[in-house]
């Protein structure tokens, strides 16, 4: 059964477009049926629909809701991957015009929206090949990869790279494409072996997490390769240059520096807490030791001056000379602090986990639990095939990473499933030591002292890395509104224009307006801040409709959570603090504000009507 019997959707991709193609769009979506190998070009929807569902995530959600059957397993060939760029992806001229967002049924939670969003260059290259997005259905019999070039589009044999790590795969496929500047997004062994939180990795430094890699693996789809010379038309170049420059100015204080990468323990430094020893300590000590000996090169995404991604050549210790490629955040650093490591051991292991293609928090929370269970005598050598799960035991963690990525041994296999599964398997007290959200995992940072970030993690689709969040103040440009709307930083997923949320600074005046002006200059629209908020709101509502269709209720947000995540903070300057004090009231409040029922999470009918989403009324809250 299809999720919605929506007659409008039949014409969503029109045979012949009747309206103007707004600037920023290429005009085409590529549909791939992995089962038959059939490739079809679809026209983009009419302009009014593009504007209603503008951006990557919202557009992709809408397509997925209309294409995905109910009651299937994430690894069923009928699972659908929808990947979309947005109108400012690849136009140049602005920061953050780098994003591509994939949605599908999450293999981590099995009942909520999975979303893997990535930056770098892949989205730009896809547009250069002439496409705004990709829809993947079915499953192949043997390993394939998709070549999307402006010269040709085809499914190619991937047996040569099947089994290979991310770095080798990327290099081999680039060579095979014959284009030195082809861009590749691929999966590693973890995706092939259906590790529930396997990632897609693209352009070395970028990851789309939350199980996208596993769904690709289930379809025997090893990689996307994109190449082309095209660029989207821009409505008003001079206005775009001006808006882009203002946007760049707004984020200039957030530019990454080499110095930061040489001295910082990562994002947690901003508030002074990291995850250590399976979330049992938060205190930063000498975790950054030795990093100052490294050679670090910033490796920004396409035209973005924020410069998040970076490369490292380790300059000291047992891994001297090893290189690593890292993304914007630093969850992988917290991942290995959580297992008792420090300094360059952390960077070395981070490169390993990326090459295997395992989402770091999935491993951090699973292995963290296993290590704690070992420490407490709950898990013994009979279950670890000889590994001693002692904190900071490098050999054990390296071996465990390999086993997890290939589902080898009992422990490797259960870590591949996830921390919640391991906790259930261990049973007893150990059930209280686990961190998870709806079976997925939160981004691996010590969020517990931060109320808004915690709320964001809890209400997100379950381990789906939520976008944005913020401080106590509304963005400067939104103070004109009486109260927080869905762009409230306390709420997830309010940002959907397919710019990168790392390239956002909402605090100073013009931080948000310059982004909306960039959108308008690109497309030729006259989108206001209010309309922007509605678009973000639509994305939130469709995400929860997706969950509602598959059995999610709002109460899961605070009930289906690993207990450790809601425990009072064990030490450090936030000792004793916990969001649990305000639960579930805070979550109820969040749902009320966003026009949904506080227990079921279903949108009220007037919310759907206001947002023009009446076609989903079947899933609304009627009383």
């Amino acid at each position, binding site marked *: 059964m299809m999720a919605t019997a929506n007659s409008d959707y039949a014409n969503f991709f029109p045979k012949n477009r009747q309206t103007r193609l707004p600037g920023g769009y290429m005009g085409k979506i590529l549909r791939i049926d992995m089962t038959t190998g059939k490739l079809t070009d679809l026209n983009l929807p009419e302009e009014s629909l593009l504007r209603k569902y503008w951006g990557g995530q919202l557009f992709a959600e809408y397509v997925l809701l209309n294409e995905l059957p109910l009651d299937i397993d994430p690894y069923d060939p009928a699972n659908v991957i929808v990947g979309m760029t947005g109108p400012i992806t690849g136009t*140049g*001229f602005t920061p953050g015009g780098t994003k591509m967002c994939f949605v599908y049924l999450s293999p981590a939670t099995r009942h909520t929206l999975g979303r893997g969003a990535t930056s770098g260059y892949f989205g730009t290259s896809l547009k250069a090949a002439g496409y705004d997005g990709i829809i993947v259905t079915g499953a192949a019999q043997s390993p394939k990869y998709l070549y999307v070039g402006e010269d040709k589009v085809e499914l190619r044999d991937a047996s040569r790279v099947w089994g290979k790590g991310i770095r080798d795969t990327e290099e081999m496929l680039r060579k095979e494409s014959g284009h030195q*500047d082809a861009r590749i997004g691929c999966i590693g062994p973890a995706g092939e072996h259906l590790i529930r939180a396997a990632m897609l990795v693209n352009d070395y430094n970028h990851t789309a997490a939350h199980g996208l890699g596993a769904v690709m693996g289930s379809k025997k789809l090893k990689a996307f390769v994109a190449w082309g010379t*095209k*660029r989207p038309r821009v409505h008003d170049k001079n206005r775009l240059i001006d808006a882009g420059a203002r946007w760049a100015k707004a984020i200039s204080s957030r530019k990454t520096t080499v110095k930061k990468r040489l001295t910082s323990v990562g994002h947690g430094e901003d508030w002074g807490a990291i995850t250590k020893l399976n979330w049992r300590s938060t205190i930063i000590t000498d975790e950054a030791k030795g990093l100052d000996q490294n050679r670090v090169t910033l490796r920004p995404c396409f035209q973005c001056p924020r410069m998040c991604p970076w490369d490292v050549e380790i300059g000291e210790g047992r891994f001297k000379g090893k290189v690593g490629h890292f993304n914007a955040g630093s969850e992988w650093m917290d991942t290995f602090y959580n297992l008792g490591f420090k300094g360059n051991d952390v960077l070395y292991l981070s490169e390993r986990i990326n090459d295997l293609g395992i989402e770091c928090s999935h491993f951090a929370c699973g292995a963290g639990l296993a290590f704690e269970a070992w420490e407490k005598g709950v898990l013994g050598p009979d279950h670890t095939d000889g590994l001693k799960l002692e904190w900071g035991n490098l050999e054990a963690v390296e071996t465990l990473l390999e086993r997890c990525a290939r589902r080898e041994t009992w422990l490797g296999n259960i870590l591949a499933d996830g921390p919640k599964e391991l906790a259930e398997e261990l049973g007893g007290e150990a059930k209280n030591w686990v961190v998870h959200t709806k079976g997925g995992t939160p981004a691996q940072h010590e969020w517990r002292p931060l109320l808004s970030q915690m709320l964001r993690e809890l209400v997100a689709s379950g381990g789906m890395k939520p976008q944005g969040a913020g401080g106590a103040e509304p963005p400067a440009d939104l103070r004109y509104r009486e109260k927080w709307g869905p762009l409230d930083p306390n709420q997830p997923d309010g940002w959907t224009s397919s710019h990168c949320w790392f390239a956002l600074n909402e605090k100073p005046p013009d931080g948000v307006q310059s982004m909306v002006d960039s959108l308008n200059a690109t497309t030729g629209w006259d989108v206001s801040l209010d309309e922007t908020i509605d678009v973000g709101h639509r994305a939130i509502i469709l995400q929860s409709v997706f969950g509602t269709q598959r059995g999610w209720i709002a109460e899961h947000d605070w009930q289906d959570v690993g207990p450790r995540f809601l425990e009072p903070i064990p030490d450090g300057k936030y000792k004793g603090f916990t969001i649990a004090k305000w639960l579930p009231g805070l979550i109820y409040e969040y749902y009320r504000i966003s026009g949904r029922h506080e227990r079921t999470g279903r949108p009220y009918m007037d919310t759907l009507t206001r947002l023009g989403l009446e076609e989903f009324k079947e899933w609304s809250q009627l009383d």
Partner: protein
Amino acid sequence: MTTSPIETLTQQYGNLVPTGRLIDGKPRSILFDATKCIGCRHCVQACKDWNDHDRTSLYELSSTNWITMEPPVLEGLSPLWARNSCMHCNFAACAAVCPVEAITKYEEGPVVINKDVCIGCEYCIHACPWEVITKNDITGKASKCTMCSDRISEDKQPFCVQACPVSALDFGFSEEISDKAKKQAEAIGGYIYGEKEAGGGNVVYVLKEVKEKYGVRNIGAEKFPKHKIPLGLMLKDLFTPRCGIAGKLRALYLAIIHPKRLIYRYFS
């Protein structure tokens, strides 16, 4: 230093290249500091954005790619990077050899090809010591970096400079840029490239390692260095219909009014 015959010639008979003014006649320069460059290619893409060029390819100069960052490997995969684009020579060999005077050296710095005038003879391509001119396969015209003369005319900096996220590119009045380059070279124990090469120009680099490591060319200080236009190409242009009648007539007319310019073009 011995004076080259061409220099003598220039001193005696005036400049060998057509010149012009964009706004105020004050020379400007681009500074590329290799010690700051991270090889991100924002400059390369920005040039494409400003000039509406194809998105790729990025790794070789073409009529839609006026600048490359060398070596031709993915961002982040080399420890050293060098800019490869027009140096906007003070003694622009490309302009001196153009039989239709399609290339102008502007007082503000830019050496610019007027594509409406270019007849596609390819002399400039062979004359440029840095080999940074390419031919547009479709229009048959010569093509290269303009130093964003259109932007300089509006008193704006070149777009590549504006896009560099780490300030490895800088732009300003030549005197100031020269000072900055000197200071930076001293500070890092490096040296300046582009101030003497082929008589200098309006693009200078600060380098630290030896030139070979960056893959930048060893070019002598001689102004209007001996060019490499193949004799066959010249004969073809003179005695076949190549480049069109209108082009030939313009070349002939210019040869009559600027006969001295023929000496370097055909006899050096």
